[in-house]
């Protein structure tokens, strides 16, 4: 019984962490797959949204749901502006210029956060309904983790449905496959880019807020978890929503288990696994084409 409970604990905790990773990374996967843009500043959008959500709750006394909505909308709006005025100019530039630009954005976001809010880390105060334990019949587990898992499942399913069953989803898939062809068929690729970029960044902001409870939130956030976001995206496969979902859950569970059993340097296995998967399938587990 003890072993089964341990196992369930690791599994649920890891899946909850992986879910947050998914919510943050899914936008990165779509924008990288769609625009071929190496957006290292994606973590900065997550940080921006996370700060907005936490500050709205702690200082302006927003409810949890209202704060999450605010975080999503504000991050999406900010990123749409940045996309229209800056990112767009670099779509046809080399990867190096994109890397340089987005590293610069990370520094600006980090410094701005310190100047506006301060260098100390922020804590998220959960609403009382989401605190405590939930009895699942076989095991008891933290209510918030279960809540996260359910939310992630709904989001993954929703995005997948939009991708596979709607007109805009079909346009996105067509543009990922062949941008020039899609453009000549009359798809407004520029508008599509702005919409998906804003949506993906908004999701990142949402993920930043949802994950603040156990990832923490401080000005270093944008850099600290960047490698994890990138691994989730590249292992899952660029532009593949389900791929990122599975890769994120795998990464979450592995990380949770390794930190528990091998606290010193156990993450080495995550990097080794990522390298092996990328060598075996350079396009990622569920990616269609090599970029």
């Amino acid at each position, binding site marked *: 019984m003890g072993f089964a409970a341990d196992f369930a604990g690791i599994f649920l905790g890891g899946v909850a962490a992986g879910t947050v990773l998914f919510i943050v990374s899914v936008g990165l996967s779509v924008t990288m797959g769609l625009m071929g843009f190496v957006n290292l500043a994606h973590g900065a959008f997550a940080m921006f949204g996370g700060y907005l959500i936490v500050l709205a709750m702690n200082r302006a006394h927003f409810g949890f749901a209202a704060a999450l909505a605010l975080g999503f909308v504000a991050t999406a709006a900010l990123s749409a502006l940045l996309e229209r005025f800056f990112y767009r100019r*670099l779509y046809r*530039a080399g990867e190096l210029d994109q890397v*340089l630009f987005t590293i610069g954005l990370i520094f600006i*976001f980090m*410094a701005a956060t310190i100047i506006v809010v301060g260098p100390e880390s922020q804590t998220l105060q959960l609403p009382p309904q989401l605190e405590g334990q939930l009895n699942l019949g076989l095991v008891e587990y933290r209510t918030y983790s279960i809540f996260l898992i359910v939310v992630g499942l709904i989001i993954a399913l929703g995005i997948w449905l939009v991708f596979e069953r709607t007109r805009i989803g079909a346009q996105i898939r067509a543009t990922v496959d062949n941008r020039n062809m899609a453009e000549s068929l009359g798809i407004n690729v520029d508008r599509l880019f702005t919409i998906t970029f804003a949506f993906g960044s908004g999701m990142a902001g949402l993920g930043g807020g949802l994950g603040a409870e156990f990832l923490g939130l401080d000005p270093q956030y944008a850099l600290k978890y960047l490698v994890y976001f990138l*691994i989730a995206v590249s292992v899952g496969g660029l532009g593949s929503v389900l791929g990122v979902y599975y890769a994120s859950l795998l990464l979450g569970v592995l990380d949770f288990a390794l930190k528990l059993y091998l606290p010193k*340097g156990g993450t080495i296995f995550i990097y080794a696994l990522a390298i092996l998967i990328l060598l075996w399938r*350079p396009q990622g587990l569920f990616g269609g084409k090599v970029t």
Partner: protein
Amino acid sequence: MTAITARSEPEIVAASLDHPAALALINRHRWRWWETLPWLAAIAFYFAFPDYLGFGTELLITILFALSLDLALGYAGIITLGHAAFFGTGAYTVGLLAFHGIWTEPITSLLIAAAVAGAVGLLSGFVLLRTRGLTLLMLTICTMALLEQAANMAHEYTGGFDGLPSLPIAAVFGYFEFNPLYPNTQFLYTLGVVLVCFLFLRTLIYSPFGQSLTGIRENVLRMHAVGSPVKRRLIICYAISAAIAGIAGALWAQTNEYVNLSVLSLDRAATVLIILILGGYGRLYGAFLGAVAYLALEHFLARIYPTAWQLGLGLLLVAIALFARNGILGLVDGLWRRLRPRRAAR
């Protein structure tokens, strides 16, 4: 048959030397007068700023590290964000040898570090260079993170997070001791090593091998079509670049007399990339300008206003990516062309 060619070859060479194309090729790698300036400046720095020799040593090591990256990224076009893997390998090679009392002689230690880092570069290049773009970028980051975690895990030997303090480094040539308070020896020793490495790199880049690297960067398909062994060239280039980065790391460990996990961090890899792009990549001297500009600003600004430094650096990087794609040297080049339009037109 052999006699004819032996006699006619110098004649052909002599006749073709007048040809404008031949002259252009010869002149391209001729040593220009201004190429002596950085080295004169380094010697002048030694006499003018005796209190800043520690900073000067760090600057020289950063230049060498950026030069090694320039070979892989600027010339061969290998997009990597994990070059600190080799810097750290070199640093830990020296650190482990010295700390455990196996080998402390500095120059041979440098050679060992270069060999170990070069071997890691050869091996990882052999495996990683089959991929391109984002996948390659991720693989280089992951390889570096893997080495960092390995160094963290093997804390019985590497000291883990705390690193290896107070390394015993023998005197250079058995005579010139490293003194942490007066780093005169460190500075001159580093200057000598950097000069030798630079001359090697400069020769390599202007050699046919170096030219083929530029060809691979500009048009891989055409290089395949003319029968150039693209992958082998890239792997060799990556290994050489890794060996030189290893020398830079080894110098860092020797002159600081300690090693810690920071030598393998993403931070270090990103910083050297920023420095190279800031100065201008694929241009040899971009590494010099970038390192001087970045370290001077960091040294004097970051200690006083760390947040403002971060903000300023961010704005600078964004501005460079948007408006000055080729860094400081690119700007200088553009100005030069605008000032001398007639020569450019001819």
